[in-house]
């Protein structure tokens, strides 16, 4: 708690909270990052689940830089938004659910990338197993869940 109180008293946090354009700018960046992340990972996971089989499975790796860029934008903008009211956000259950979903999505993504993209040279990745499809489905649930929880922070205790 002392740390959170200190965090929201920093000059940076005060600037985010009080500068007229800082908060909407950070929120806009956060929505943009969400669209990048969900767009790139949404297509990748749907492809693993069998959507658009004409897209080469391993080719979806090309989308990962966009997912990473979206994630980085959102980690940075999210952290900045967090500092503006750290105690409030930290004590929000919806915020905690969001962070938990992101953590689950992250662990899931590492396992999924390992299983789908780590293939012998020359292989096209074959068809994803039922287990891998479950992970891809879970990934969609975790990320969309994180987006929903994120929007609801403003409306819940």
């Amino acid at each position, binding site marked *: 708690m002392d740390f959170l109180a200190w965090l929201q008293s920093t000059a940076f946090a005060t600037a985010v909270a009080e500068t007229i354009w800082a908060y909407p700018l950070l929120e806009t960046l956060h929505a943009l990052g969400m*669209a990048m992340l*969900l*767009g*790139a990972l949404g297509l990748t996971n749907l492809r693993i689940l069998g959507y*658009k089989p004409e*897209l080469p499975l391993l080719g979806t790796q090309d989308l990962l830089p966009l997912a990473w860029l979206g994630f980085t934008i959102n980690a940075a903008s999210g952290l900045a938004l967090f500092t503006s009211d750290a105690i409030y956000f930290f004590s929000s259950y919806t915020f905690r659910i969001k962070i938990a979903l992101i953590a689950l999505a992250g662990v899931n993504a590492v396992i999924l990338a390992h299983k789908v993209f780590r293939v012998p040279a020359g292989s096209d990745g074959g068809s994803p197993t039922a287990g891998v499809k479950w992970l891809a489905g879970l990934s969609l649930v975790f990320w969309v869940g994180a987006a*929903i929880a994120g*929007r609801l922070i403003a*409306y819940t205790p």
Partner: protein
Amino acid sequence: MEFLAWLESTPIAGAITTSVWMYATFETIHYIGLAMLVGSIMLIDLRLLGFARSLPLPSMLGLLPWVWVGFLINVVTGSLMFIYNATSFGMNRMFWLKMTFMALAGINALVFTVAVARTGERWLTAAETPAAIKVVATLSLALWLGVMTAGRWMAYV
């Protein structure tokens, strides 16, 4: 102005005002629609600009239904949120800026559709997209970013 006041007096607006969960739900669904719309548009535009070349362009254009579904979701949820606060949103210059960007993005998308129909067979499967199409793709990215930015700023003016 009278029309806006009438909108605000409709039973729909009344229901949204008295409900504790409706506005939050519409706003959350509006975000999911945004992710579908902007997430898919971004993938298509970035592919036109040369990103993720291992994913064939004609298949990526097959993502357009996601754009339409996201757009429809957001027209419905956006209209409901507008009705709830019509006199205020109707006078909000950021709202009109958002509508302007959307209209321009629509015209731009129409130009793209005509270009695909008329000249698409020459470049859809080519290694490089024509420069004019890249301009259209860049404009699309910029205009949708404008829509999102003005949309978020509406709450702050």
